[in-house]
């Protein structure tokens, strides 16, 4: 029987992996790769929803400021996505963990064929013990890119893979916020060890139709900071 708490969507914001100057923080990146590779090693199936392509693209292009227009954002994202996936590969490689890149259109949920395709790809990657790193396909997106707001994408991915848990906010300083399927409130987790404990002792998720709360939990920032 399928372990009820096996699939975890981890949402990563650029802040999760950058320092106070908005540059990639090597220590945080390394820590993140370690924690997630370890979760994967423990038998969980992880899927990362990682934003930051625009920020990394702007850094790569040595832009003085974040790109303003839609078209500039898209071009910067195309440069930055290549950087983003390169960094993830390098850091996960240190923990012997292979990753894959999956870029989804924002309307994937409206296209049953594409959605089934994405699901098949994810399932196969899970079987191969690979961590998919998902982002929106910003370079060809037709709706304006919201800087670093990948929560809707994380929800869509959770629906596609029928994840048991969404790890909403991940703070490498040691605090986590998890949203189990069918639960209305996110749970605050204090550190990595607590994270393992919480994930493993969560009650089995109810077969609720409304799987994930579609909005941010109201008190997300309150809980964290």
């Amino acid at each position: 029987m399928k372990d009820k708490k096996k699939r975890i969507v981890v949402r990563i914001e650029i802040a999760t992996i950058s320092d106070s100057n908005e540059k990639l923080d090597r220590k945080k990146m390394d820590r993140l790769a370690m924690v997630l590779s370890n979760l994967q090693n423990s038998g969980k199936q992880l899927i990362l929803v990682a934003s930051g392509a625009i920020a990394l693209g702007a850094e790569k292009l040595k832009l003085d400021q974040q790109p303003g227009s839609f078209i500039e954002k898209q071009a910067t994202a195309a440069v930055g996505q290549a950087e983003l996936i390169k960094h993830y590969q390098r850091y996960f490689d240190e923990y012997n963990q292979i990753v894959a890149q999956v870029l989804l259109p924002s309307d994937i949920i409206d296209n049953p064929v594409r959605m089934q395709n994405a699901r098949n790809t994810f399932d196969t990657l899970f079987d191969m013990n690979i961590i998919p790193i998902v982002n929106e396909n910003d370079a060809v997106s037709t709706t304006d890119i919201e800087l670093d707001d990948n929560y809707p994408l994380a929800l869509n991915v959770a629906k596609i893979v029928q994840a048991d848990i969404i790890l909403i906010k991940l703070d490498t300083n040691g605090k986590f916020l998890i949203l189990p399927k069918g639960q209305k409130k996110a749970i605050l987790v204090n550190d990595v060890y607590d994270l393992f404990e919480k994930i493993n002792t969560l009650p089995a998720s109810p077969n609720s139709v409304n799987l994930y709360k579609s909005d941010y939990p109201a008190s997300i920032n309150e809980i964290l900071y």
Partner: protein
Amino acid sequence: MEYRNTLKYKKRIVIKIGTSTLSYLNGRLNFQLVEKLAKVLSEIKQRGIQIVLVSSGSIGIGAGRLGLTAKPDKLSKKQALAAIGQAELIKIYQKFFENNNQIVAQVLLTKDIVTIPGRQKNAKNTLKKLLSMGIIPIINENDTIATNEIEFGDNDTLSAHVAELISADLLIMLSDINGLYSADPKTESSARIIHTVHEITPQIEKIATDSGTSFSTGGMSTKIAAVKISSKANINTVITNGSDPAVVFKILDGEKIGTLFLAKSGKLIKNKVVNKD
């Protein structure tokens, strides 16, 4: 020869490179070839020519990453390998282009860019913006959400659509064949390369079908189908062997390399600069 001379003045070029050219027979990536390709394309860009690279190879590289020896048959397995391999592929391109101080971008496309006008405009804008920023976009099909039935299926077709999308003035397909032969060179000793094709007639299509099909996903027939798209869009196409990427320099010098398929209207011949020659 004057047809070839027009190639000296091209300003926006789409280069397509296939799996069989990028990798060894065992499917593993040929780093030396990628290194050379990056060097050649970076230099051409330095001359003020805009370059878009359409590159295959993600599935083979994904298989190599996992140490698989056999190519997968199942679609979902191919898609999974493509997701792994594309990440590797773009990392390797970044590295080699960076050695030449050239920034690249990754753009993964689906057939939406042909069928949905909004998406088409969008992809066009992004690509043109990247080109204006001096970046070389590296394009592949977004395999993880594509299916055989509804998508491009091969990068020959994709490259022709991309060329049309950005109004390129030349498409160069680098593959493991030297060009279009008059007959199958493996069996007919009299077979020779047809250097110029003015129009894709049923006879040309027949030659393409007969002259060998053992070339990875896109055989000559697929290439001819792609050329129909580029030709109709008024874009000249050259098909040649890419085992030495420096061949692109020669093509742009007007040398008689591979097969040149002329654009439908022949309009490009009226190029002002050419008339001076």
